[in-house]
């Protein structure tokens, strides 16, 4: 019969559970009763008949019975299994896979153990292989850390049987033993670490420690079990405090986000400032070039006129004056006021309303300290305007 079916629902896998109650003799009574029945069938069923033929018949029946009994010793050990043969209850031999024979019961019997199968024990949760879902077992999962915090951990333990004999004969309820020992080992190793360590870089370390501890424990019991792996399925703060922990994680991200936003701001402001600075300098360069060029142009023009003027000063003066006045008067609105007769001066108000720059109501005599043509001052940039004002104020 299949003996080793761990990881199940903890059903009755003990072959003794089917043949006898623990602590009682093997069920020889049953055998005896069987034999008694058979014999009474052989002998009691006879009434009269020929002696010799009957004797032969009885012999034949006995022979068949013995044959069947001998054949009942054939058994098959599957791949990955070991058959442990007990002779009168003593461990006699261990057989490998194949077709085998043992002396029939009650002389020998065999128990098979699968030594290849990897079984899993779950601590802190149970997964349901049929639905694929998993349910928590908080009682197992919640444990104390060294700094007296509570952590929520889930472990999976994978093991297989390394020694069929030890597994069969040394420990009762091996699965229960592994589960309890695992819990003990895991809690011991978690109890030796701080919460933060267990939640972060310590996960592997914890599982490793638990594995070593667990193997030691099971070896001490000579349980014949080999722990292949203890894996941390999950390590997290308990549900009650999870929001607070999540918030702390979020806070870390917020910190980063705030920094990044500030960096973004800086990355926006500084290049803009550099651009503005470059603009200022370029404008200044432009101003410098234009001012120099204008000066040179004006100077050249003046020099040309001046050299001609020297040749005929009076005429040139007169001409220039008249031309100028012509231009001025033709380009502006004029109001004639005869001073001898004008005792009351009427001027239409709307015509005299100020009209922006350059609107003047009399002959202007602007104080020009700088040799700047009038147009240049009007469409200059704000920065320049400031500069000019300062220069005017300072000069």
């Amino acid at each position: 019969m299949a003996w080793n079916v761990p990881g199940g629902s903890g059903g009755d896998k003990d072959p003794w559970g089917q043949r006898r109650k623990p602590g009682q003799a093997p069920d020889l009574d049953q055998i005896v009763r069987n034999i008694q029945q058979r014999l009474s069938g052989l002998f009691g069923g006879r009434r009269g008949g020929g002696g010799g033929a009957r004797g032969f018949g009885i012999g034949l029946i006995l022979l068949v019975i013995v044959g069947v009994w001998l054949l009942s010793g054939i058994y098959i050990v599957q791949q990955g299994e070991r058959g442990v043969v007990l002779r009168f209850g003593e461990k006699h031999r261990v057989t490998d896979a194949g077709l085998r024979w043992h002396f029939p019961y009650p002389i020998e019997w065999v128990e098979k153990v699968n030594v290849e199968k990897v079984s899993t024990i779950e601590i802190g949760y149970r997964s349901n292989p049929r639905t694929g879902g998993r349910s928590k077992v908080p009682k197992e999962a919640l444990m104390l850390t060294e700094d007296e915090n509570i952590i929520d951990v889930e472990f999976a333990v994978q093991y297989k049987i390394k020694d069929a004999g030890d597994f069969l004969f040394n420990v009762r309820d091996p699965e229960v033993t592994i589960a309890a020992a695992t819990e003990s080992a895991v809690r011991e190793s978690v109890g030796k670490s701080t919460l933060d360590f267990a939640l972060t870089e310590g996960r592997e370390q914890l599982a490793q420690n638990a594995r070593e501890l667990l193997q030691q424990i099971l070896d001490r019991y000579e349980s014949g079990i080999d722990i292949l792996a203890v894996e941390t399925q999950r390590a997290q703060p308990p549900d009650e405090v999870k929001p607070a922990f999540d918030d702390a994680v979020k806070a870390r991200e917020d910190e980063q986000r705030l920094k990044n936003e500030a960096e973004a701001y800086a990355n926006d402001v500084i290049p803009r400032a550099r651009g503005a600075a470059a603009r200022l300098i370029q404008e200044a360069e432009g101003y410098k070039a234009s001012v120099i060029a204008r000066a040179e142009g004006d100077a050249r023009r003046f020099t040309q006129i001046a050299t001609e003027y020297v040749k005929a000063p009076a005429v040139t003066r007169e001409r220039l004056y008249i031309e100028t006045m012509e231009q001025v008067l033709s380009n502006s609105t004029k109001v004639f006021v005869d001073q001898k007769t004008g005792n009351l001066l009427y001027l239409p108000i709307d015509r005299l309303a100020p009209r922006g720059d350059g609107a003047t109501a009399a002959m202007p005599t602007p104080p020009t300290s700088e040799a700047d043509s009038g147009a240049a001052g009007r469409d200059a940039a704000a920065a320049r305007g400031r500069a000019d004002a300062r220069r005017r104020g300072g000069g």
Partner: protein
Amino acid sequence: MTQTKLIAIGIVALLAIVTMLSAFYSVDEREKVIVVRFGQILRHDDMPGLHIKTPFIDDARYFDSRILTMDADPQPFLTREKKYVIVDSFVKWRVLDARQYYLTVGGQETEARRRLEQVVNSGLRDEFGKRDVQSVISTERGKIMQVLTEYADREARRFGIHVLDVRLQRVDLPDEVSQSVFQRMKAERSRIANELRAQGEEAAEKIRANAERQREVLLADAYRQAERIRGEGDGRATTVYAESFGRYPEFFAYYRSLNAYKESFKNKDDIMIVDPSSDFFKYMKKPAR
């Protein structure tokens, strides 16, 4: 051969078989056995295998020889600082001396478990009473188990039992204490969260301020440079003007003024109140002499 003979033979054969079966007993790898005759223990500690006894009057009694588990229910224990912890422990034991075991606890597992439980409980009470919570959870855990194992083993020898291991399976805080632990953990986390956010704000503020400082410095530097450049331009222009105008200062004033008039009055919006007696209009009044 009569029928009665046959029946007699049958009965005799049956008796022989039953007697033979009763003369043998086998011991499994998993069990220990004692042979009792009228309440007296004849033999014990037979090796596994087939053995012979006197039929009918000798009785073989079997005990499980495997490692067994005594899993105690979780129980509260007081630590040194008078705090309760809930301890769930289990004991791994096996029958060592079948004779002693039979005599003291009658070979009853339940009885043996009861005795073990008493022993382990008193041991736990002692060990936990000597230590504080932190050491029972963390540092002294292994020590406690070791001490308890040795102690329980010594005590259990009287019952022919060998205790291999006493293990603390779980050491937990009572529920109401767990709640306060959760509260503390929450408080700790929110402290950390606040700290992190504040640090973020701090860093962000520094970065912003730094950026603004850089902006101011950049602009001011640029202003300085720009003004210097403008000044250079103005300087050069002045030199140029001075050079050319300086040669004809008297004509320059005249010429420049005329230019200024032109520039100043070129808009239709400009209103000039003109006195006709000005020099310009002299020919309007009286034509050339």
